[in-house]
């Protein structure tokens, strides 16, 4: 794992640098073992279940299976980047990457755009019954991805759907549309969650900031655009990063959709490819897929953080 300065990007984006807090000299600790007692348990489980697995995946991805003769005993030997060469030749994997990429560039902006709109409406004086709307929009977040997919799978199915008038005309489970049907499920689950993160940030803005704008005659839309949105940029970045990570991890929803639609193959998303490869079993290749996917997630999240921070600095 890298510890380059840019890694602090997520901290900087999500919370202000904590420099002011550390101005004052901290009181001296009598017993330094207390610090060990606080940090060690987490450090231990983090090492065991995060650091070591990542290292192990990298190691495993470098192995190849070798046999002596056709029926000889299989042994694992070091093969360098042989598995990665296979990863790059694997067209199923790359088309699954392309698919989630297409999914992400459409679904993430739509979802965050809606979440922002709802949060701004909740924060404006235009709306009554805020408590009700906030709750109603958040309820889907309590529905696990698998359950949400089962539910929507039924709603999409031509013979089961309550909206037969629609589903008899449009086949939501066809190969053309199923990706967007899945996108709808993911959006349905997560809009409320993102809305709440943005809304909580809006609530933390002191009301008097708007006073001057009010006196200048700015309306709600103008205040939202020129004051609120710039101020809540960190929350938007946070929800953006989390959504990017979520998109690349897509698994439960498409996997569940396999029982509703034959258009969803066993290698529909990168994670499904990893699972399918590991159960062949070809664990070294699956490990190489995992490493590539984790790296891609890392790089994309970083790039996103970088771009959004540069914009923030420029404005």
């Amino acid at each position: 794992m890298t510890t380059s300065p840019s890694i602090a990007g997520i901290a900087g984006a999500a919370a202000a640098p904590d420099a002011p807090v550390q101005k004052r000299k901290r009181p001296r600790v009598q017993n330094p073992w207390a610090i060990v007692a606080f940090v060690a348990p987490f450090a231990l489980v983090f090492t065991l279940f995060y650091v070591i697995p990542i290292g192990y995946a990298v190691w495993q991805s470098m192995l190849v299976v070798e046999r002596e003769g056709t029926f000889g005993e299989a042994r694992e030997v070091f093969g360098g980047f042989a598995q990665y060469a296979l990863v790059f030749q694997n067209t199923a994997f790359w088309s699954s990457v392309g698919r989630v990429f297409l999914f992400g560039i459409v679904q993430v902006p739509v979802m965050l755009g809606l979440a922002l709109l709802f949060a701004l409406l909740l924060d404006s004086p235009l709306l009554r019954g805020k408590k009700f709307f906030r709750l109603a929009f958040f309820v889907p977040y309590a529905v696990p991805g698998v359950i949400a997919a089962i539910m929507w799978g039924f709603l999409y199915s031509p013979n089961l759907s309550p909206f037969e008038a629609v589903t008899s005309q449009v086949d939501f489970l066809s190969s053309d549309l199923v990706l967007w049907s899945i996108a709808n499920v993911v959006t349905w689950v997560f809009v409320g969650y993102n809305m709440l993160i943005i809304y909580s940030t809006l609530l933390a803005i002191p009301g008097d900031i708007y006073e001057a704008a009010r006196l200048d005659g700015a309306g709600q839309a103008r205040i939202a655009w020129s004051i609120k949105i710039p101020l809540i940029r960190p929350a938007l970045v946070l929800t953006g990063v989390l959504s990017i990570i979520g998109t690349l991890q897509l698994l439960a929803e498409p996997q569940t959709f396999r029982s509703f639609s034959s258009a969803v193959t066993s290698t529909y998303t990168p994670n499904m490819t990893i699972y399918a490869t590991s159960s062949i079993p070809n664990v070294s290749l699956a490990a190489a897929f995992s490493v590539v996917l984790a790296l891609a997630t890392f790089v994309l999240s970083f790039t996103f953080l970088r771009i959004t921070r540069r914009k923030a600095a420029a404005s």
Partner: protein
Amino acid sequence: MTTTTTMTAVNPTASRRRKGGGQDAVGRGPREGVIPRTAAFLVMGVFTLYFLTPIWWLLIASTKDRGDLFSTNPLWFADFRFFENVGALVAYRDGVYLRWLLNSLLYAGVGAVVATLLASMCGYALAKYRFPGRETLFNVVLGGVLVPATALALPLFLLFSQVQLTNTFWAVFLPSIVSPFGVYLSRVFAEASVPDELLEASRLDGAGEVRTFFTVSIRLMFPALVTVFLFQFVSIWNNFFLPLIMLRSEELFPVTYGLYAWNSTINQFPELRTFVLVGSLLSIVPLIITFLLLQRYWRTGLGTGALK
């Protein structure tokens, strides 16, 4: 302006929202016309239908027997068979469904409690003490936030199979007690809400650091702890890849994975359809109740995570 009446109607809600802040919601002043208000209400109304209709449908569907499910209005009650359905679900295969629910509660409930405790101690130490390697540790943990949990599932499976832990309770439980995001949130929150003076006072009274944490600081950090707990709870409850790859024995499944397994065999066993629907409905009830009960705490913590 002619909106004196709306002013009195809107203002109480507007100022009540800010707990103890005493600020008036000036910028959210009540000077908007009827058209923008109607538009806002329409947008929210339409989306309320979008968010709640599927759940309503699930509720209705789980009150029907198999025949009615297809032949009656999908969005309204027919013969009310909810309790018969629940009874049949619970009785099916010696109550395997209840077993799954219990498993989920253990994985997610106990797992999230342990995760919250470990993460909050670490985040608290990062916020309140200076020690060598502090920033390095924090940066590594932040890197962990960016590592997708599903990328860990396969290597964890490979490691656990080396030590013969796959297909056990521990295979799903142990990885769930790590919450890097929890460390991050606890650190931010401890910095904002636990004053150094209080720690100093506690030291003068002769309390040890650990005791101070458990008697004083943990209370001040409560909203953050609830937030960490809930998000870890939900992410364990929803985790799909880990059980998928680790578990073979049905009696170890969490409820979501069990329902997934049933749903995948619906074409061979159509009688499972009712069980999947009723089971899905029952499985989301505990989460909704937990969120409702704890909402006044976790919403405070949520804001802390994303602001500044």
